[in-house]
């Protein structure tokens, strides 16, 4: 009874209908993920703003996991079922596929067998030499001919059915790769200034994402940024060439990299995703005591305003920056380019929401004075926004991609085709019947057949 139930369950589960339902279900949820803002895709501020605007809606959607749809139990469950279905359907087809690829040593066909093919033609030949000529033309077209008594069977691309196994098998590799990547993946973001050493401790990362509880450790990585040399054309970044020395798992290496060409050490990749200006800000009081003396990373290179606070004080310093300052026709300050040719800082010091002082700094000798303090910028460097990624499983994923493409190519671009021929002597002539069948082809089968028989493969 129980056995029969499981057999029925298995039969239902490996049916194509279930595959189609699962694809439809996953497509629906992917679509929902497109129209419902996803927590993983928005930055926290944007998500909070949306939450504040529609509190009840967001609460409801979050409760049913629709704001993190791709990691919701429903979608993960459906994905697992999809791959399980795929595995079982593929496994079920293996014996039939292998059978269809095998070629017998000889063949036995009658005229009636050939007549059942969707495309066939009868010839009345003077002798059997005509049959041999057609057979050799078929062979020249890449068919392998199996002889029989008064008949032949020719097969081209007999391994095409294996393409289906390769394609569906590749999904399992991709799934395995995806799972490895998900559970081993670490992603951290940090700002590092030229000359600065990054030791890889948790506090040095601005943000850290671990996708799975299984990933516990931080990557063993130390970085010293030697040089960042961004290049802009018409205010468009065309290179963020960076040179670093990195040490990972006892190996030390110096190298250059750029956007689209990460610095890779084992399973760890270092990517540069943006650059900014890190002025060395020095604030001293009347007695020369230093309140601040550090490189401050500011997102101001493209004209945005950024700020920082002076430690142990209530002062906030707002900064505007022009890398290659000029004055436009209206008398407003502007920048000619993003190259650091003529850097100018506009400083506004605020305390409790009120302006305390403002000024312009164009070189190391200039400073802004306010309430007994002096702010100067004796030096400036670039800082980079770096992404550090550590994961395993990429190889499986790529192997899966390659296998999938090989499978699709074998199955569809080189489909299995068969030509069957049978003949007998009648009234001093040879009655020769030849037929063709190709996977997926019905209307084009006749054209293919004519092409093979004429030996004109390039037609």
């Amino acid at each position, binding site marked *: 009874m129980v056995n029969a139930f499981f057999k029925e369950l298995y039969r239902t589960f490996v049916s194509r209908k279930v595959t189609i339902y699962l694809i439809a279900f996953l*497509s629906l949820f992917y679509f929902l993920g497109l129209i419902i803002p996803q927590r993983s895709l928005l930055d926290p501020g944007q998500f909070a703003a949306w939450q504040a605007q529609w509190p009840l809606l967001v609460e409801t959607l979050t409760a049913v996991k629709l704001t993190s749809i791709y990691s919701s139990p429903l979608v993960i469950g459906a994905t697992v079922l999809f791959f399980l279905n795929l595995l079982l359907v593929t496994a079920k087809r293996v014996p039939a596929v292998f059978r269809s690829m095998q070629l017998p040593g000889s063949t036995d066909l009658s005229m009636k067998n050939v007549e059942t093919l969707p495309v066939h033609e009868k010839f009345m030949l003077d002798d059997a030499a005509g049959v041999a000529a057609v057979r050799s033309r078929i062979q020249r077209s890449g068919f392998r001919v199996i002889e029989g008594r008064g008949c032949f069977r020719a097969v081209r691309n007999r391994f095409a059915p294996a393409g289906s196994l390769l394609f569906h098998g590749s999904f399992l590799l991709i799934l395995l790769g995806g799972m490895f990547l998900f559970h081993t993946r670490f992603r951290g973001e940090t700002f590092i200034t030229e000359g600065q050493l990054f030791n890889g401790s948790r506090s040095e990362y601005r943000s850290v994402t671990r996708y799975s509880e299984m990933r516990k450790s931080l990557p063993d990585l130390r970085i010293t940024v030697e040089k960042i040399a961004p290049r802009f054309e018409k205010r468009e970044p065309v290179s963020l060439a960076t040179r670093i020395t990195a040490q990972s798992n006892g190996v030390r290496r110096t190298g250059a990299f750029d956007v689209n060409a990460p610095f890779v050490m084992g399973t760890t990749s270092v990517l540069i995703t943006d650059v900014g200006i890190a002025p060395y800000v020095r604030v001293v009081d009347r007695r020369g005591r230093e309140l601040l003396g550090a490189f401050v990373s500011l997102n101001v290179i493209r004209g945005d305003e950024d700020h920082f606070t002076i430690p142990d004080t209530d002062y906030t310093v707002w900064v505007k920056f022009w890398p290659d300052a000029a004055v436009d026709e209206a008398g407003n300050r502007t920048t000619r380019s993003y190259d650091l040719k003529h850097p100018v800082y506009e400083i506004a010091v605020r305390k409790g929401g009120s302006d305390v002082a403002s000024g312009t700094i164009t070189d190391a000798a200039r400073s802004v004075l306010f309430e007994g303090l002096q702010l100067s910028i004796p030096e400036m460097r670039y800082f980079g926004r770096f992404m550090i990624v550590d994961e395993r499983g*990429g190889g499986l994923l790529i192997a899966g991609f390659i296998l*999938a493409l090989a499978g699709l190519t074998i199955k569809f*671009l080189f489909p299995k085709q068969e030509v069957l021929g049978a003949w007998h002597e009648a009234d001093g002539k040879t009655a020769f019947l030849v037929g063709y069948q190709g996977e997926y082809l019905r209307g*084009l*089968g006749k054209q293919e057949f004519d092409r093979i028989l004429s030996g004109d493969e390039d037609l």
Partner: protein
Amino acid sequence: MTALERLFFWTAVLLYALSLALYVVNFVFKAEKRSQTALGTLLAGFAAETGAIAVRWYESGHAPVVGNYENGLAGSWLITLFTLYLVHRKKDFRYAALGSIALSLLILGIGMMSSPTMRPLNVALLSFWLYVHIFFAWLAYASYTIAFSIGILYVLKEKKQAAGSPPGGIFEKLPSLDVLDDMMFRYVVFGFITDAVMIATGAIWAKDLWGSYWSWDPVETWSLVSWLLYGLVIHLRVSLGWRGRKLAWLTIAAIIGVLVSFWGVNFIVEQSTHIFNVR
């Protein structure tokens, strides 16, 4: 956009529109004699668009891959190339040009309205994988467009046949329904394979650029949905034996996935890593 490029561009648009009009007139009024004129006009439009691409490439110093305008230019060029190839190889497929020229014009129009300004190649786009990714994307989309056009022809011819149209009509000159069906399937299959290469190379590029093979970015997700839709079309044909009208309607409907992944996503969502700003 230089004056020469503008001249080539608008000449191409004009000739494509004229060619489309001629094909429509031929089709509706059964004026077969003018089909060579329509094809010649399409060829001339294609030559003009090639000129626009060449000027753009020379002036910008990079292949046309930046922004909707350049992508539209490259995309419609490839769709027209596929159409010309098909019509050259199989003359009875000439009315497939009806759907593909209309889509080419739509792509060019949207591109022109969005961003024809020439921009340097952002560092995010400086990758070998970009060219492979985009090339295969357009191969896929061009194939799907041709399949879509053949699907329309199939539905029209089948409807006419069912209505018992008199012999000698324009539909008689179209290939048989079986041949249309096979060709539609072939283009879907070719599109599906090249689409797979597009997704795979995109994932490899994304790993270098964003540190992750897959980010469930809306464009990525919708490309996957679109690919799965065509996968479904193939599965239904291969496994369940769907052919004919059902498959034709499915192929026509599946183009929506492509249109949404290319333009629709940006209308629906504001955040996509596919905006390609290094910030």
